[in-house]
């Protein structure tokens, strides 16, 4: 009989152990038990989230591979080109060892992309940290940023966008979500599959060490004060090796597709999950001889080899007749290559140490992790953070002072000090750089460009998980539309607390519902995703954070990029009237800073959102929209200020009526709105087009481009330099 302590170490319950025994009809061997426990960890097995995934819309005319079918989702961007993308979390490792945790997060997501034979062209990061006053938070922030910078810069893939959000609930449990976008020709798209009797399993890249054993398991339990002792479960990255592996794999897919059956990266649960997943996709069996695996340390056991999460390794499923060619190919890139096993037609996995069989089981018994029902009360009125009555506060007293204060808030201010540590230009495709909203990256060899963003307002999801998650999707989509790109698809990273808590279960279910609903209406299917649960610390669960990564297409970028605003150009507000009611402060950064309260009712009408987004795209298409920005965190005035600071221009705005509610109009975060810079000559036509569709459209003011620019809007009168100084103040 199994020792309960043994099971605790591998985060498996006694019930799960009994299920293993009943499936195998015998006790598992130690190696089998290790494999089961890794594959049945929340991180690999999606035990709590899998039952929800059927809600996601996964198809559209652009989608080539859907969620779960491959390492990342793929979309058709036309003319024979494909874009693949995915986001993944590396929260737990980053909480205990921020540099390597973040670095290996970058490495892992890159491998997901180039395992598909596509060239990674951009990275984005969504980061969450706790109370900035704490030295531990600053240590984590600096470590994570250095890790992303250290790995991404060395590998030579630009980090082009992202977000950083601070909220006390992340103290001790930061979130590090990394997204990678790759492109290539459709015929080079490589599957992560193992099939064809006697074909070879070839392990390439780094040697296998003892690092990261049970990393997937570690990522699937609550963080505690003892978690720092888990530092050995965090892997160490080698971006130089990754660069060689990337070049070798992309070249293999592009030039020698006929040599291979598939490529699969080694990520969480290492060789176990990569080989079993590939075999399962191919409907095959596999036999692995662990002695053939190159080892970094002496006397490694089969258990350790099968579960190691050493980085920068890739499994090539090679056609048997091309063994020599493949070995030579990887040798050219100075990478280690070893044939470690074979594909067969048994549907079984056999792990051997030379002639000794250490594991021998039906693959599907291992890969089909049990699922758990989430227990919660499906009633928002019983959800503890729901408080629809917004508590009243006084309106602004000193408009200038309030404006400068909001511009300098950590969640609003410029993140330049961060993104200038990331190489955001290598590969010569970066058309719109960080700091200007969504990044726009050229697809090399074409006139197309991809706009990309990663986004989530955790606070809004916390107030109302269903509506807040719809807003997260709409906001990501709006970011892309503001560049003139048509949103095509999304990837999600579901970061939540312990799903055994009913409030967390409620958040999780409603977030998935909200994402699904918005993805359906905005026609941005979910093509890949990842879940990170058990983000808990001694002080409770994190604010629920379903991060949305989204990619959109600009069909022809040449000559459309405008990088200056001229004197006299007009700024329009499209999507709402200028004057706003007090309740539009619900969920806003301003209101939270004034009150520390999550009270208020969020609202979004997705059909209306879609209509506004289509209208913005239509005026871009007719080349009447010059530069646009969506209105999000910080509200209308922050959106205008960002535009003025980025383009170095002043603003002469309108004055509001006497009875206007200033805080809501200035800083309210009503959804579905854009500001659009236009030339005066297009004003009448745009107004007419908007009126014909009953879309609110008003002139906010005119830009000033002269020396000593000023910023005026209603009661605000400041110099451009003073607002820029506030915004550029480093948090």
């Amino acid at each position, binding site marked *: 009989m199994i020792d309960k302590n043994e099971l605790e170490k591998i985060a498996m319950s006694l019930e799960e152990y009994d299920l293993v025994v009943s499936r195998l009809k015998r006790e598992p061997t130690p190696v089998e038990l290790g494999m089961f426990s890794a594959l049945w960890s929340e991180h690999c097995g999606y035990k709590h989230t899998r039952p929800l995934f059927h809600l996601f819309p996964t198809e559209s005319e652009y989608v080539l591979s859907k969620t779960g079918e491959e390492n990342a989702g793929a979309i058709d961007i036309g003319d024979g080109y494909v874009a693949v993308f995915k986001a993944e979390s590396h929260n737990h490792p980053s909480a205990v060892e921020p540099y390597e945790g973040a670095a290996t997060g970058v490495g892992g997501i890159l491998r997901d992309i180039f395992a598909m034979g596509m060239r990674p062209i951009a990275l984005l990061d969504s980061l969450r940290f706790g109370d900035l006053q704490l030295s531990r938070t600053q240590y984590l922030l600096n470590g994570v940023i250095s890790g992303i910078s250290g790995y991404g810069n*060395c590998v030579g893939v630009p980090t082009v966008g992202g977000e950083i959000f601070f909220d006390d609930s992340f103290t001790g449990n930061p979130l590090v979500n990394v997204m990678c976008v790759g492109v290539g020709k459709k015929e080079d798209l490589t599957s992560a599959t193992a099939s064809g009797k006697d074909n070879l399993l070839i392990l390439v890249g780094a040697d296998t060490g003892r690092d990261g054993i049970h990393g997937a398991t570690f990522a699937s339990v609550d963080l505690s004060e003892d978690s720092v002792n888990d530092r050995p479960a965090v892997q160490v990255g080698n971006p*130089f090796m990754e660069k060689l592996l990337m070049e070798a794999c992309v070249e293999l897919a592009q030039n020698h597709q006929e040599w291979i059956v598939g490529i699969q990266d080694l990520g969480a649960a290492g060789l176990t999950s990569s080989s079993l997943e590939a075999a399962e996709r191919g409907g095959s069996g596999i036999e692995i001889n662990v002695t053939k695996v190159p080892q970094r340390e002496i006397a490694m056991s089969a258990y350790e080899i099968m579960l190691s999460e050493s980085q920068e390794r890739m499994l090539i499923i090679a056609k048997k007749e091309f063994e020599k060619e493949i070995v030579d190919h990887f040798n050219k890139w*100075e990478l280690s290559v070893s044939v470690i096993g074979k594909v067969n037609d048994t549907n079984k996995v056999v792990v051997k140490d030379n002639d000794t069989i250490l594991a021998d089981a039906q693959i599907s018994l291992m890969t089909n992790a049990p699922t758990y029902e989430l227990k919660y009360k499906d009633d928002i009125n019983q959800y503890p953070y729901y408080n629809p009555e917004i508590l009243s506060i006084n309106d602004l007293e000193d408009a200038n002072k309030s404006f400068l204060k909001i511009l300098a808030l950590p969640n609003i201010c410029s993140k330049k000090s961060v993104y200038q540590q990331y190489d955001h*230009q290598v590969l*010569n495709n970066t058309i719109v750089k960080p700091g200007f909203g969504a990044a726009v990256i050229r697809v090399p060899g074409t006139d197309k460009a991809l706009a990309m963003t990663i986004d989530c307002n955790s606070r809004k999801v916390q107030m109302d998980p269903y509506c807040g998650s719809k807003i997260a999707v709409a906001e990501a989509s709006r970011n892309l539309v503001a560049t003139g790109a048509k949103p095509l698809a999304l990837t999600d990273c579901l970061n939540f607390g312990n799903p055994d808590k009913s409030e967390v279960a409620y958040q999780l279910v409603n977030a998935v519902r909200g994402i699904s609903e918005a993805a359906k209406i905005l026609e941005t299917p979910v093509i890949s995703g990842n879940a990170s649960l058990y983000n808990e610390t001694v002080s409770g669960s994190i604010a629920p954070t379903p991060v949305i990564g989204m990619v959109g297409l600009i069909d022809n970028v040449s000559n459309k990029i405008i990088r200056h605003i001229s004197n006299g150009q007009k700024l329009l507000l499209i999507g709402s009237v200028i004057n706003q009611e007090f309740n539009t402060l619900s969920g806003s950064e301003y209101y939270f800073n004034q009150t520390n309260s999550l009270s208020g009712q969020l609202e979004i009408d997705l059909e209306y959102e879609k209509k506004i987004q289509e209208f913005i795209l239509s005026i871009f298409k007719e080349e009447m929209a010059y530069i646009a920005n969506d209105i999000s965190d910080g509200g209308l005035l922050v959106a205008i200020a960002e535009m003025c600071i980025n383009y170095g221009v002043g603003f002469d705005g309108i004055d509001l009526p006497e009875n206007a509610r200033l805080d809501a109009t200035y800083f309210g975060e009503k959804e579905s709105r854009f500001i659009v810079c236009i030339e005066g000559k297009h004003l009448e036509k745009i107004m007419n087009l908007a009126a014909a569709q009953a879309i609110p459209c008003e002139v906010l003011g005119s830009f000033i481009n002269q020396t000593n620019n000023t910023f005026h809007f209603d009661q605000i009168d400041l110099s451009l330099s003073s607002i820029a100084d506030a915004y550029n103040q480093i948090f």
Partner: protein
Amino acid sequence: MKVAIVVFPGTWSDDDCMYAMHQVGADPYKIWHTEKSLNNPDLVIIPGGFSYGDYLRCGAIARFSNVMKSVTSFSKSGGPVIGICNGFQILCEAGMLPGVLMQNDSLQFRCQDTYLKPNSNALSSPFLDKLDRDTPLKIPISHGSGNYFVDGKTLDILENQNRIAFRYSNEFGDIDQKYNPNGSINNIAGILNESGNVLGMMPHPERACDELLDSTDGNAIWNSIIEVVRHKE
């Protein structure tokens, strides 16, 4: 103009240099570090990146590769060589240029636009002879170790021999420490060897080669060398 672009394990500006060469109508090709022949180029580029992962010290391992022997003899016979970013570090490590590139004074990586003021008095060089030395160039940097340093005596020699090619400036060409992104001595962004045919610079002219990418100022350097080479033919 035939351009050999040297590729080490870990180089990542090779494709960007290929792109920039195509933009200015040159004929580029890559040379893998194990090769011995450069195939008779008119220009050799040692591009940026993290050759050998920057292990040991930036550029310290790459200098021992086969191809560097050919690059050295090519430069000794007067052939033009430009080392960009990691390429500059490699040229210093190989002794083809004096000095070292230390870690940035911010102790952080920096990726940003910079303005480079060409030295009006710089000695004759194929990289500078045909460009307008009064106009600052907007060219981005991307490095963690770009803090150029030499001892005082060598610095005097560099200054006296007019071997400073570019200094960090503002958009109007004013040179001041506050426009210096990495702490380099005398605001140095790029230097020449004694005969002017070897240029090492930290900023990436190959990234400033296309309006779509926000600057074409890097092309001034490429167009200068193209014109000099054409003139020779």
